[in-house]
């Protein structure tokens, strides 16, 4: 009996060792990739990263519309970025293809494009008569605010993109291991019940 317990305990060495290494070495890059795309004016900017934050260089980017027709293709640059002019007013799906089965996508909705285009495009230069006493009209103030908001929010967009590419947290790792042991408990429980039933049958 004792022997059997030892056998079961042994692989724990392996688990604990790998767990320690995993936790002491903050998740760098696994092979998970993420892409993040956003619109500014009439340009779509994309940022591609491996999990952990390393840039995806020289990877293929494909842009599809809502119906799945390919609109354009490109390659990420040294900083993992790629930008293009909005090719069509439709839902755009930006697909990052790194090869070896690694792929990520991001969808920009038509309304997002519309909104972005509305704020910084076709903005007429202020005409002298507009600068009169009343100052700016409502529409123009709205445009100016949205414009500067776009600029101010850009770093936050980047932060969001970065947080998306962060690796798994300790909670998730420990949670996953807990899950596996929970399943083990379940499996043991059911096996035990079967065993006991057989035993009961034999006794009867």
């Amino acid at each position, binding site marked *: 009996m004792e*022997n*059997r317990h*030892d*056998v*079961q305990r*042994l*692989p*724990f*060495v*392996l*688990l604990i060792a*790998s*767990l320690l*290494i*995993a936790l002491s*070495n903050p*998740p*760098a*890059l*696994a*092979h*998970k*990739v993420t892409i993040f795309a956003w619109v500014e004016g009439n340009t779509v900017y994309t940022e591609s990263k491996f999990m*952990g934050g390393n840039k995806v260089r020289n990877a293929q980017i494909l842009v599809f519309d809502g119906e799945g027709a390919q609109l354009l293709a490109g390659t990420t640059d040294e900083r993992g970025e790629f930008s293009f002019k909005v090719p069509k007013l439709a839902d755009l799906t930006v697909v990052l293809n790194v*090869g*070896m*089965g*690694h*792929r*990520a*996508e991001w969808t920009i909705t038509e309304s997002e494009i519309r909104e972005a285009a509305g704020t910084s495009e076709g903005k007429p230069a202020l005409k002298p008569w507009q600068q009169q006493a009343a100052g700016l009209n409502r529409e123009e103030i709205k445009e100016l605010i949205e414009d500067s908001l776009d600029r101010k929010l850009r770093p936050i967009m980047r932060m969001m993109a970065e947080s998306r590419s962060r*690796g*798994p947290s300790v909670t*998730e*790792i420990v*949670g*996953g*291991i807990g*899950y*596996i*042991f929970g*399943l*083990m408990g379940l*499996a*043991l429980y059911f*096996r*035990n019940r079967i*065993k006991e039933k057989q035993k009961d049958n034999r006794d009867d």
Partner: protein
Amino acid sequence: MHISEGVLSAPVLVAGAALAAGGVAVGLKKMDHEKIPQVAVLSSAFFVASLIHVPVGPSNVHLIINGINGLLLGWLCFPAMLVALGLQAILFQFGGVTVLGVNTVIMALPGVTCYYLFGGLVRHERRLISGVSAFLCGSLAVFLSGILVALSLVFTQESFFSAAMLILVAHLPVMIIEGIITLFCIAFLKRVKPELFGGIHGKPA
């Protein structure tokens, strides 16, 4: 080596799921009472192993340890990997739920293969033979997984040889590291728990 969601075509996904289901069924059938905790522990080890990164040049790669898993669990590594990969897909967004079957086969089939190829050899009395086969077991499992990834990508746009070359070159360092890790693990386990190897090959544990 996790294949992402949306890369593979439907027939490959279905074939992978069917193969995985078969493997898991065989594994569950062979799973007796005493093996359950061992399966759980190795499943957890596999679950966290992919978080251990090995920097290689500009890129870096993660451990897989499907060789050790296969060697110690045999067919039981199918259910062990299915659970670990499922949790990785849900919690870490590695791979995905639809590619779970394919990914399970990619990881577990080489493990089972290594179990049959090296399961007997690592028990050899002579240190050299068992050491070399443990090393080979660790690296061959990674190699075979790479081949399987390339195979499943054939049916998409990538050609087999270019994909296989790319994957194998990227995983060359992992193959060596896994070989060394397997070597030490097996040597350690053999010294402290030789029954572990007797147990999986029919002899009672």
